[in-house]
């Protein structure tokens, strides 16, 4: 008899506690949850950010020996204003949703790395066209979102641009008929065989 009362008393006590939790306990639970969340979220994002640096991108020789060397000769590596565009600036979306989607796709590329898909210069060149076509497709679909993160059409000063730039930007670009990547292929790397690509010979 006495036992059951204690038992019921215990359950009741917990019940009561759940109904009206002591502020301290509640505070502890909340705080722990909060800290865990921060650690997880932070860790996750830190890990994401770590993979979002140029050092990471050229950490493997496939990138360091091929695209990076070529990119070093272009305007996005060195220019009069000293503002650089790094690999993720052009290749990884800035906003979270698109970034995660791109990162999940990138995990397939890790598989490519493990299986030595492009581990020599020759293999890289053999596959360059399909990789380039995929990037062009992605940029076309996003209306060159990554380019526009830095270059905003609204703020282009036509009086400062060359004649040829203005004649294209004020027409095909302004009307939305074309997007940056339609006209600016090969801006950061050597091109693959352009046979059959629109606008090329």
């Amino acid at each position, binding site marked *: 008899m006495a036992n059951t009362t204690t038992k019921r008393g215990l359950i009741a006590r917990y019940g009561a506690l759940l109904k009206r939790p002591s502020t301290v306990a509640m505070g502890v639970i909340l705080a722990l949850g909060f800290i865990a969340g921060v650690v997880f979220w932070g860790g996750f994002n830190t890990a994401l950010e770590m993979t979002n640096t140029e050092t990471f991108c050229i950490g493997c020789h496939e990138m360091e020996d091929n695209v990076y060397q070529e990119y070093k000769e272009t305007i996005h590596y060195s220019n009069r204003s000293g503002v650089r565009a790094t690999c993720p600036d052009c290749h990884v979306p800035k906003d979270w949703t698109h970034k995660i989607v791109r990162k999940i796709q990138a995990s397939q590329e890790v598989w490519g790395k493990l299986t030595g898909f492009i581990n020599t210069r020759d293999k890289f060149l053999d596959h360059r066209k399909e990789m380039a076509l995929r990037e062009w497709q992605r940029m076309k679909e996003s209306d060159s979102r990554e380019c526009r993160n830095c270059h905003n059409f609204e703020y282009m000063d036509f009086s400062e641009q060359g004649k040829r730039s203005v004649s294209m930007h004020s027409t095909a670009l302004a009307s939305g008929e074309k997007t940056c990547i339609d006209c600016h292929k090969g801006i950061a790397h050597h*091109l693959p*065989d*352009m046979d059959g690509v629109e606008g*090329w*010979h």
Partner: protein
Amino acid sequence: MKKLATLLFAVLASCLAGTAISDTGGLNSLRGSTDLDKVRQADDMKRIPRDRETFERDYLHQPPLIPHQVRGYVVDLNSNKCLSCHSWTNYKKSGATKISMTHFATRDGQTLADVSPRRYFCMQCHVPQSDAKPLVDNSFKTVDALDGK
């Protein structure tokens, strides 16, 4: 007498040669005069204007000068940046001058269906101009047909 003359000549010649070697100054070139043992201050880098009016030509068959910047324009086996604007398929959209018929001809005078291999590397013949002042005067007269007078 003849021997003496040869000797004198040899001595004179070696003296002259000696002075020529020891005298390092006062050498004049188009870049001004600098002592041979000094390193000359380099000129400022010349700039190529982004776009300008097309250049007048001075003689028939002159490859016209390029009136725009060509930095980063690649011409190789895979792609030809110049033709992406100057080819017959693309010139209308880009507003560029189309390449002329001669660019399709082989050296035997046959006309090919596409740019002739000997005209594929545009910068062999066409070059842009920097804003540098000419170092020497030039009295070349534009041929009558292009003189515009």
